[in-house]
């Protein structure tokens, strides 16, 4: 037993280490980044387990799956939209009979602090027909991750651990247990289970369906799903999931009594426990972070036996994240007295490109290069350069998903728009931009791709790119872009006019061109100068 101060993300990492982890993989993505970041630091001190960044969430997932195939324990971590990228291996790994424990940690971002949507990964667990654990605090993040490895091996499925931003990025004391050793290499003894030819896949799918009752038997009996009935007060029952329990607890003193309460921390939803609660109360309030997943299940199409209150009936806002105050209002408690700011309106302070950011110089050059065109189309992507959408730049017109700048510019060009320009970062290009660039090469699409190469994955805190950025030019030429239309330029304000001239020439070229704008991120330059001192190091 030891006490450690850990972020929710770091508690997951320690839980995995103590569960006998052999390898962990991820692509950085807020709010999940600190899981594998912590494991990489851990490996630097202890040599084991292996922890590494991958090209994208799909490759990360498949590498973890390979570890499982040979009987050892692996973890793959990602943000919610990362699971869209890894959906193919995720869905199919549910069908094979998992051998070494495979734990998929997905950090959702309700409220969209740093994301383009607020999708709820519990639906993905349901879609894959597997078990999902949802910790409510840092201690549970540690314990549930440990347990998830055992469940994965017991039920032969990947187990999804769902975090949300407020847990992933909140620190508290965690009591840790003894470490289990890593598992030796072994083969599963069910070789056909991993070959999803239709004839095998049908058997495996039927097997997964047949095991559903076992998963439910586990969630009906496990301590993560706790039902407490209050025989004195039957008017209202409450169902909480994940961290919603904390906001409910925060308001209990003021409520003055304890309503009958079911907490759900493990899915599939424990149906018998839900029925026990509903049999006992005359109405039920559902508090869950994310989509109204449990609520919609209860509501169904036929009216439920008792009124159900939640996001779909208006007691809880349908979007954004929960807060203690939203839960307070849903419990019909009066708002606390608070200070009010009378007579002064405060301007917003949105995030922005740092002073001296190389992307700003690229946007300046692009602005000059595009002057005079009637209707240029500039698609962009996920990263710091997305901030080029905001004043004073207003340089980009799209930000949808990783790599889409390349394929959308091609689509716009295919549709006849001219000029069509895509702007993508170095790390995002390696993540999902290479394959659409091959599409563009195949048709010699009339477009210009600008790769803004700041030599790091900047938005998530400066993780190294999977290949050194000096290799980007070779990659671009290697997939077949005409070398005469590949340029590597320095993204510096002293060169803005020259850069604009090269960009203009390539934008006017009728065909595919790629311009790589290079200068290291000012933040990573600074961090190297001072020798990184992260806040968590202060707490250690």
């Amino acid at each position, binding site marked *: 037993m030891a006490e450690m*101060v850990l*972020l929710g993300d770091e508690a997951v990492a320690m839980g995995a280490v103590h569960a006998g982890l052999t390898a962990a993989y991820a692509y950085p993505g*807020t*709010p999940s*980044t*600190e899981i594998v970041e912590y494991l990489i630091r851990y490996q630097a001190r202890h040599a084991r387990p292996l922890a590494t960044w991958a090209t994208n969430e799909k490759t990360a997932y498949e590498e973890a799956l390979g570890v499982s195939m040979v009987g050892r324990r692996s973890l793959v971590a990602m943000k919610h939209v990362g699971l869209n990228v890894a959906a193919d291996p995720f869905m199919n790994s549910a069908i094979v009979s998992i051998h070494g424990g495979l734990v998929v940690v997905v950090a959702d971002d309700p409220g969209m*602090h*740093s994301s383009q949507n607020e999708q709820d990964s519990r639906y993905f667990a349901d879609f894959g027909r597997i078990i999902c654990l949802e910790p409510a605090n840092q201690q549970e993040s540690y314990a549930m991750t440990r347990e998830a490895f055992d469940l994965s091996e017991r039920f032969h499925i990947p187990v999804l651990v769902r975090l949300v931003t*407020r*847990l992933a*990025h*909140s*620190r*508290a*004391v965690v009591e840790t247990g003894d470490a289990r050793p890593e598992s030796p290499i072994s083969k599963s003894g069910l070789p056909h289970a991993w070959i999803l030819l239709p004839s095998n896949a049908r058997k495996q799918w039927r097997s997964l369906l047949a095991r559903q009752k076992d998963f439910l038997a586990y969630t009906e009996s496990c301590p993560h799903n706790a039902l407490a009935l209050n025989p004195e007060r039957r008017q209202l029952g409450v169902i909480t999931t994940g*961290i919603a*329990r*904390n*906001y409910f*607890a*925060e308001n209990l003193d003021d409520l003055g009594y304890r309503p009958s309460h079911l907490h759900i921390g493990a899915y599939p939803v424990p149906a018998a426990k839900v029925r026990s609660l509903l049999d006992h109360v005359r109405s039920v309030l559902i508090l869950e972070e994310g989509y109204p997943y449990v609520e919609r299940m209860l509501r169904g199409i036929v009216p439920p036996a008792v009124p159900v209150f939640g996001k779909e009936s208006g007691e809880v806002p349908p979007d954004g994240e929960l*807060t*203690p*105050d939203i839960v*307070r209002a849903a419990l019909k408690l009066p*708002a*606390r*007295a*608070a*200070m*009010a*700011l009378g*007579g*002064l309106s*405060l*301007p*917003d*302070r*949105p*995030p*922005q*490109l*740092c002073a001296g950011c190389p992307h700003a110089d690229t946007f300046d050059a692009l602005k000059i290069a595009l002057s005079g065109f009637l209707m240029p189309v500039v698609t962009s992507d996920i990263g*710091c350069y997305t*901030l080029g959408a905001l*004043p004073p730049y207003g340089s980009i017109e799209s930000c949808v998903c990783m790599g889409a700048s390349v394929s959308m510019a091609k689509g716009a060009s295919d549709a006849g728009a001219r000029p069509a320009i895509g702007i993508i970062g170095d790390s995002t290009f390696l993540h999902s931009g290479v394959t659409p660039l091959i599409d563009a090469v195949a048709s010699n699409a009339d477009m210009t791709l600008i790769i803004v190469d700041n030599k790091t994955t900047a*938005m*998530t*805190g400066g993780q190294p790119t999977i290949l050194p950025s000096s290799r980007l030019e070779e990659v671009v030429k290697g997939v077949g872009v005409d070398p005469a239309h590949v340029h590597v330029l320095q993204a510096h304000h002293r060169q803005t006019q020259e850069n604009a001239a090269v960009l203009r020439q390539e934008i006017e070229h009728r065909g595919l061109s790629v311009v790589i704008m290079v200068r290291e991120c000012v933040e990573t330059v600074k961090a190297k100068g001072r020798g990184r001192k992260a*806040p*968590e190091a*202060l*707490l250690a």
Partner: protein
Amino acid sequence: MKYDIVLAGVGGQGVLSVGAIIASSAMKEGFAVKQSEVHGMSQRGGAVLANLRIAGAPIASDLIPLGAASMILSMEPLESLRYLKYLSPEGAIITSVDPVRNIPDYPDLEALLAKIRTIPGAVLVESERLARQAGSARATNMVMVGAASHRLPVRVETMEHFIESLFQSKGAKVVDTNLKAFHAGWGAAA
């Protein structure tokens, strides 16, 4: 005992480090602590908010409810007002007077400071000037921690010890500068 602190500032001002110093000191004294942080996009020059909760018993919510904070500790005057609704009517607001003007519509500074002064328990600190006097303009955070230290449920000596151990590896001069900055903040808010 419950003591909730809203930490405010602009990305890059070291809000999380201020939180870490107070949180670590509180834990050394045996309190339960939770610290909710902002990572990712907001850290790029935007408004940054962290929630630090200190209590004598286990803490449920990672977020501070409206009207519950005992203190708003802000590295920047505009940001000190952004989260005012979290402050309890008995709470204190401790802020630097030095603006970060990275937005085009930054309000009139004098009007802003006048507004802050109308709030009971407001403490305005010339953090930049005091940090420079202590030996480093970068120690403004330490000035603000010092200014807050009067009201925190943590002994000043515990925080001093923590600051010493934090900067020990950087040499006696750096330790001295940061302790001086801490004491200057303490003095300014006395």
